[in-house]
């Protein structure tokens, strides 16, 4: 480094230090906290939280740690993948789809690892010898690469990245996915492009990452473009074999009106199907008061989506083993708030989270074709200081459910 360069470096350090010393970090932290509170409030409608809060922490840990390599030796996939026979059906994703889960994922779960309006992830990384992930994205047209309005536009944006030397696109093929026009291609990333794959409506983006080896499909669905990707680490010796199964996975996808109607072909129970009820503030207030839980009313209501009419529709999707509860907001968007395994003996319903941390038993009254639930025992740690019983009573006890299927 020359004398001038040394002087430049020293000057910049001194300038930066001086600026750093004049900022008030505690005050700035209060400002940031306020901004994040506002952000949380605006996104509350999008959150599918309370009873799955513990599970969410696990999901965050998995997503955040995905850079870790598997802890045991990678394994080769079965060729061909026989498929699992289990159908995942999206509830909150912006562009509805169903997916016959590949066997490698069905071994570890029947639900998505992560599901939101714009992203669904089925993840077996990290720490898993299979170590493979499948993502379904609904990028926002205005911010997606190439404008994202058309499949050719999206592909042109990826071609542009390839031309810049960041990517190599191979095995490109125009095909149909669920009867819809699509383009599939494999990607070898030579330089990470953080926002290269596409962006969501909250401003965050998904990119191409040097350590990944992946295969993608851009699908023109009736509700807009969907990008599907399957990824593994480039140093997985069986990467090619795993990614070769991507096209089989696509064979099990259906979109829009063609998506498969049932979440699973498993046998039905008496409760299987869709149930619905409507919550109102006075009803919730009454139920919590009767249980001596009035003190938590405001905090419980704060977890509900904002709704001008102060009425909330609750829908229960029940298959042979799982119960999923969604709140339907005034714009008709379902917001998944609870997903648990259940058991049913004809008069008692037991709901248990996947990790066993939350368990509730309800007495069930099914007079007149309606389902009225009353909690008789609730176990599980409070969420943000609110006892789980508050949420159980608000969601399940406030009003009787009627069949909606």
């Amino acid at each position, binding site marked *: 480094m020359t004398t001038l360069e040394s002087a430049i470096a020293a000057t910049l350090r*001194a300038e930066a230090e001086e600026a750093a010393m004049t900022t008030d970090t505690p005050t700035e932290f209060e400002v940031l906290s306020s901004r994040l509170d506002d952000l949380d409030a605006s996104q509350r409608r999008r959150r599918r939280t309370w009873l799955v809060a513990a599970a969410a922490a696990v999901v*965050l840990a998995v997503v955040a740690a995905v*850079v870790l390599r598997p802890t045991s030796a990678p394994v080769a996939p079965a060729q061909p993948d026989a498929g699992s026979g289990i159908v995942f059906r999206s509830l909150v994703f912006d562009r509805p789809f169903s997916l016959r889960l590949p066997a490698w994922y069905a071994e570890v779960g029947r639900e998505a690892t992560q599901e939101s309006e714009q992203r669904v992830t089925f993840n077996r990384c990290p720490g898993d010898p299979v170590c493979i992930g499948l993502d379904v994205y609904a990028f926002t047209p205005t911010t997606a690469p190439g404008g994202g309005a058309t499949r050719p536009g999206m592909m042109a944006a990826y071609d542009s990245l390839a031309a810049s030397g960041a990517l190599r696109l191979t095995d490109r093929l125009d095909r149909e996915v669920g009867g819809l026009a699509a383009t599939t291609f494999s990607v070898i990333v030579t330089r990470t492009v953080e926002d290269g794959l596409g962006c969501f409506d909250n401003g965050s983006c998904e990119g191409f990452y040097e350590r990944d080896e992946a295969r993608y499909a851009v699908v023109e669905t009736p509700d807009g473009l969907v990008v599907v990707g399957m990824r593994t680490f480039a140093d997985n010796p069986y990467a090619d074999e795993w990614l070769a199964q991507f096209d089989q996975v696509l064979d099990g996808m259906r979109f829009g009106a063609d998506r498969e109607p049932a979440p699973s072909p498993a046998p039905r129970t008496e409760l299987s199907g869709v149930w619905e009820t409507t919550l109102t503030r006075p009803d919730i207030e009454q139920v919590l008061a009767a249980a001596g839980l009035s003190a938590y009313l405001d905090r419980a209501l704060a977890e509900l989506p904002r709704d001008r009419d102060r009425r909330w529709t609750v829908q229960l999707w029940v298959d042979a083993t799982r119960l999923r509860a969604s709140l339907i907001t005034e714009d008709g968007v379902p917001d998944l708030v609870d997903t648990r395994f259940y058991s049913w003996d004809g008069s008692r319903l037991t709901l248990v989270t996947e990790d066993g941390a939350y368990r509730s038993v309800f007495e069930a009254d099914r007079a007149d074709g309606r389902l009225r639930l009353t909690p008789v025992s609730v176990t599980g740690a409070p969420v943000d200081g609110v006892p789980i019983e508050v949420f159980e009573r608000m969601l399940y006890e406030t009003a009787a459910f009627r069949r909606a299927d």
Partner: protein
Amino acid sequence: MAGTGHGTGSDGFPTSARDAVSTLFHLHHRRLVGLASLLVDDHGSAEEIVQDAFESLYRRWNGLRDPNAAVAYLDRSVVYGARSWVRRRVTARSFTPPEAGVEASAEHAAVDGRRKEELAEAIRALPQRQREVVVLRYYLDLSEEQIAAWLGVSTGSVKKHAFRATAALQRRMEAWA
């Protein structure tokens, strides 16, 4: 679904988005304000750019594949945020030494202090792209290849801007000598 859950991951990093971003804020806020202040001319804007960077990190925490990459993400967000700020203020780019700088200069009796102040002024007076290259090269210690990737330009372009910047600074320093 940012903001739910608490605890730490296997690498000791908080797994809750809120906890993780709060931890990063306390560790890096001052440094990032320093970085932003090298790229924009007023302190309030530098603080705002850093706030935006942390909010952006919080928004995309779920999509962040490597928590260890969060710091680099913040650095880059600040550089991009500063660039956006400069674009919004492009008509006001002709350099006017800030009042605080004048006062600070007057307080420095030592020749070294004056020279440093003059050099700082000269850096602030560089065209924005040259100023970015200088800050990334000599403050963040990035390589030419890294700077090219950050700024979305070729390595040759980085070399060109770096050469022009150091030449301009050299001339200014000689003129003041």
